[in-house]
């Protein structure tokens, strides 16, 4: 007690002015914040109501059921100009997901190769990869999209020269033109379901075989031929079933129509420009992340695996990359999120993604608040789902420590 007495002069806690009470201050700050936010929201809401009234408009999501009235060039589900706005937004969302998924896969592969290439002992390959990374990292993605769309794809042969080419070579089935890439489309006949089932069975069997092979390797040290068996299960099995069922698939060829090609499958220049730009732009960032990840694994690990007799390829694949992955995954996640968000640049070339479709609806109906909330809701959900998945993956890959 003597100490306490010396400090405060008595047993009582020191008298502090209420002004300096941390708890009270915190409450005051928060109340002020809350009041300011409520005031701003109230002010904005009031203005929105007045502005809408002046423009004779109503708020609400009822407009989603009215007729869209515009056509979309790219659609994977049934859609016509008689469909509803809601249907149009669904088409847009699917298109966004398609280009984002394709971009993520390509960017990862290219980024991984370039990142490893930058660390290659081969001087020329390392320099080329550096040049690639430094060029693409430092120009805006929108410019890359325009570059592909206006600078490269627009200069491809016109549809008329494709018609000419077809007259000379009637057997041609694959065309590249400035309206897109044309190729035969598969038409699935009766009994194709069996092939799909065989494919699914093949995948499940391959996973089971890998698990068994790993267990056997741990027990005996012998590695069964996993790659060949799995390849047989996944590729050969469905193919055999396909033959047994009597090849239930025909090809629908693209043929010249009056102004354009009819039938077949077409990948439009809008999709190609967006897909190439997003993949190549993001790949340059992923390459840097991969490089940093590999450099983050200490050199002793590589040397230890050489000492164990692993070949350089094996050392990279089995020792260095799994450890590098722990460093790579978190920044990789944010690159994936960036790619998904950058896919909204589709609006600049007219690929019918969520933002492009939403923008058209916004211009037609003037429902700006509703459309922008739908955008934000969907993008935030996609971002959240992606980061949840990547966090799960990260936790699975993380070093298990005591």
């Amino acid at each position, binding site marked *: 007690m003597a100490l306490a007495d010396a400090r405060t002069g008595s047993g009582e806690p020191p008298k502090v002015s209420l002004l300096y009470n941390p708890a009270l201050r*915190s409450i005051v*700050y*928060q109340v002020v*914040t*809350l009041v300011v*936010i409520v005031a701003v929201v109230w002010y*904005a809401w009031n*203005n*929105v109501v*007045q*502005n*809408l009234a*002046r423009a004779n408009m109503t708020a609400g999501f009822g407009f989603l059921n009215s007729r869209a009235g515009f056509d979309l060039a790219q659609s994977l589900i049934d859609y016509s100009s008689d469909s509803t706005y809601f249907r149009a937004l669904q088409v847009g969302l699917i298109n966004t997901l398609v280009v984002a998924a394709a971009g993520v896969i390509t960017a990862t592969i290219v980024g991984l190769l370039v990142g490893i290439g930058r660390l290659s*002992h*081969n*001087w*020329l*390959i390392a320099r*080329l990869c550096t040049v690639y990374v*430094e*060029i693409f*990292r*430092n*120009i*805006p*993605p*929108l*410019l890359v999209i*325009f*570059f592909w769309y*206006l*600078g*490269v794809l*627009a*200069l491809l042969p016109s549809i008329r020269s494709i018609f000419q080419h077809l007259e000379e070579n009637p057997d041609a089935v694959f065309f590249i033109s400035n309206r897109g890439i044309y190729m035969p489309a598969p038409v699935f006949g009766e009994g194709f379901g069996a092939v799909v089932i065989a494919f699914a069975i093949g995948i499940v069997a391959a996973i089971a075989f890998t698990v068994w092979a790993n267990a056997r390797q741990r027990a005996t040290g012998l590695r069964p031929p996993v790659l060949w068996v799995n390849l047989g299960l996944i590729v050969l099995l469905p193919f055999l079933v396909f033959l047994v069922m009597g090849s239930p698939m025909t090809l629908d060829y693209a043929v010249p129509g009056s102004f354009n090609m009819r039938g077949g499958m077409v990948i439009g220049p809008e999709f190609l420009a967006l897909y190439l730009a997003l993949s190549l732009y993001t790949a340059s960032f992923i390459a840097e992340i991969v490089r940093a990840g590999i450099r983050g694994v200490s050199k002793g690990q590589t040397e230890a695996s050489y000492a164990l007799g692993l070949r350089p390829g094996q050392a990279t694949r089995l020792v260095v990359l799994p450890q590098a992955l722990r460093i790579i995954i978190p920044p990789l996640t944010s690159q994936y999120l960036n790619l998904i*968000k*950058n*896919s*909204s*640049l589709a*609006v*600049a070339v007219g690929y019918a993604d969520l*933002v492009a479709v939403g*923008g058209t609806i*916004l211009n037609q109906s003037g429902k*700006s*608040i509703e459309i*922008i909330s739908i*955008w*934000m809701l969907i*993008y*935030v959900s996609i*971002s*959240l789902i992606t980061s949840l998945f990547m966090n799960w993956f990260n936790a699975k890959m993380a070093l298990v420590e005591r």
Partner: protein
Amino acid sequence: MAESITYVRDRFIEAEKPPTSDSSALAWIRHNLFASATDGAMTIIAILAIVWYLPAAINWLFISAVWTGADRTVCLTTEQGGQLPAGWSGACWAYVNDRFVQFMFGSYPRGELWRPLLVVAMFVGLLIPFLIPKVPRKGLNALLLLVVFPIVSFFLLLGGTFGLRHVETSLWGGLMVTLIISFVGIVVSLPAGILLALGRRSQMPILKTVCIAFIELIRGVPLITVLFMASVLLPLFLEPGNNIDKFLRALIGVSIFASAYMAEVIRGGLQAIPKGQYEAADALGLNYFHKMTFVVLPQAIKLVIPGIVNTFIGMFKDTSLVTIISMYDLLGIVKASFGDSGWITPVTPLTGLIFAGFVFWIFCFGMSRYSAFVERRLDTGHKR
């Protein structure tokens, strides 16, 4: 124990050859280009690709390119109505040359161009000493660059006061707009980002929730939607009959977006400061404001300077998105000029995009080099 194998060497292994100290060019090539069969194959493919594409690219960009001329006919072949031989293809630099002032300043009145030029001169004059570590008086320099310079530039560019002619923002364009938007984004996002990061790490639940919600919402959506929000919703949120400037709306959108990203970068720095620093500041009796400004933030910001510069680079590239809400930044004005009847040729888009890409590249590459330089300078005593 009978099954265990004992192994005793009965003779020495042969000595390895000493590593070669051959430093001839041939040895270098063997070691760096043809170390193994795969390596050699890749080198040959790479050399073939370079031999195939590089001369063609140089030819297209420089040798076949058209450098001077007044209109599109100088860049057209005879079939297309020009004078060049059939089958010609090359860059049309004459077009960039002709449109250069427009690419830099948009439709800013040509008689008033001295005003943006003066702003550029002030900017360069203040920025260069700010970037060179040896030049003294960094505080004064920062004050001039980040506070005085924006105010002076605002009056100088917009006019309407001090006897200067008023220049509508709709006339602004080109690289000038790109630079203004990114500079404003940088100046606003730094303090806003610091405040948001501190709010996110504070103990007060309401403040914390608000900051987290703002940061995560903005970071979860594409910049385009934020720009649409600023350009379409902002007028709805304000007093009826308001006519908020389009350029200002874009500035608000970009600033909001940049602040959320900056907040996360700065939060990274705050988290990296050991707890002892906070406790030591508390033990010295510093209040929250003093603790942050004198102890924590100087260390935290120093740690994340590379991250901050990366955010700047990202923002500089992202300004090109204002094209989509129909404003004319560098990329927007270059793209708009493709439709200009005076210069429609098959090579115009590619030439214009290469020019715009080169300008963007110079700025971004410069910033990333500077960031690497700062990183090396600040990286003291951690090298093994």
